[in-house]
């Protein structure tokens, strides 16, 4: 009964978030375009599905992944756990091995479940006529998030300044963009923006803040943020790299035949 009531309040919350979007669309549809949508009934049902879907999805996350994930992130980063792994030895950045592994795994797996990324990947597969596989794109993005979190956690543990990494990442990106096949650029940059939403952001934020408050000498306010930035920068790099690799292989094959 309580769960049911909760679901209702989450559905209501999702609807409040949708209101400004719905108002914009309806306003422009009625006042500017002045033509009814081709299948109003079907589209309406689709919208209800979307709202219900997001509401259920969020409720499910709140019941499972968020509490468990946050608890695990805290436990793995806690000084007692780190100490228990190698008793008597001084704590260095190598002592956080399980945290790195957990961060990478959780980044990879939550990205695969990210609804926005599924949407973009489906569209890309449809538009490219199947040349870009939705699943392949999602894997490339998930690998990028995993790498991003690995480096991001290393940064929090060592306490090095964020902007150094970001500037280095941007430099790599600029070089890659100059050489990447034009077809993939828009898609690659879009997938960077969508990796971090419903599933990934709360978990990754919890991981970052948890780490920054347990690692000695770190300030959660300064060091706790920035993981999301890594998680949206590195997927662009991996997707571009994947496309560049695919093109290179195709060219080599052509040359050898």
């Amino acid at each position, binding site marked *: 009964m309580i769960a049911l009531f909760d679901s209702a309040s989450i559905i209501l919350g999702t609807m409040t978030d949708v209101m400004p979007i719905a108002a914009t669309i309806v306003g422009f549809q009625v006042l500017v375009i002045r033509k009814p949508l081709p299948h109003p009934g079907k589209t309406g049902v689709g919208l209800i*599905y979307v709202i219900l879907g997001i509401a*259920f999805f969020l409720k499910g996350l709140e019941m499972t992944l968020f509490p468990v994930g946050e608890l695990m992130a805290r436990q793995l980063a806690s000084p007692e756990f780190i100490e228990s792994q190698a008793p008597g030895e001084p704590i260095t950045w190598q002592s956080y091995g399980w945290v790195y592994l957990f961060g990478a795994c959780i980044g990879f797996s939550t990205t695969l479940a990210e609804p926005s990324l599924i949407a973009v990947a489906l*569209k890309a597969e449809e538009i490219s006529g199947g040349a870009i596989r939705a699943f392949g794109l999602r894997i490339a993005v998930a690998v990028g998030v995993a790498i991003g979190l690995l480096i991001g956690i290393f940064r929090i543990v060592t306490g090095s300044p964020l902007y150094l990494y970001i500037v280095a990442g*941007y430099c790599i990106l600029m070089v890659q963009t100059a050489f990447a096949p034009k077809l993939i650029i828009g898609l690659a*940059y879009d997938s960077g923006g969508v990796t971090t*939403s419903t599933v990934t952001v709360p978990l990754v934020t919890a991981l970052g803040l948890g780490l920054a408050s347990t690692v000695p000498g770190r300030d959660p306010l300064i060091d706790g943020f920035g993981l*999301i930035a890594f998680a949206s920068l590195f997927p662009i790099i991996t997707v571009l790299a994947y496309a560049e690799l695919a093109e290179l292989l195709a060219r080599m094959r052509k040359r050898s035949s």
Partner: protein
Amino acid sequence: MIRIRNQFLQNLVGSFFNIMPILVVILVFQVLVIRQPLENTVNLLGGTFLIIIGLTFFIQGLEIGLFPIGETMARAFARKGSLSWLMAFSFALGFATTIAEPALIAIADEAARIAGNGGLIDNNKGARTDYALGLRLSVALAVGLALVVGVLRIIRGWPLQHLIMGGYAGILLMTAFAPRAMIGIAYDSGGVTTSTITVPLVTALGVGLASSIKSRNPLIDGFGLIAFASLTPIIFVMAYGLIV
């Protein structure tokens, strides 16, 4: 493998495989590393069930609701041929979806706390509320502008990489001058502006526009709107940190 004909069942199975990896990661770490029994198994099973159902509904609704809306509107605007209305629509869409975004509200409050503690603003409730609201407004403005520039780019056929490079140059420049405490939160704000409902709509809008203009390739020109929408907020948040 058995071919599943029913679209809904097919999506249901797909959703199950989509969240499988998370379950595996959690279970393996729980059993092998933390070595404590999971509490509240009933809740966990129920929640997993809800996640799968929710994802299934979302994908189903995407195909019959959100994608068609975005594409029909893009086509209608293209046929109407009024650039100013299209740009007004893009701005409104970007602004409206961002201002109500819960993740942004959370991050703006956090930023206000940082600014208060760091002495950038007076550390009282009123000043913090004003600061958070101003931050949200500037991010919403940034996303609205991003969509306007992005749509203009699709119509004019400007190469995406030049604009993105320009944007990154702007970010690097701002990073050099922005208050240190604001940098992390500025970069994070770029990632949170694009919500689950905005992304499919904006993607469909871009792809729809690019496919209804003859000389545009939907794959090259249609994508990239979201890239802009996650780039400009970074610049705007740092600018906000500088000015206020």
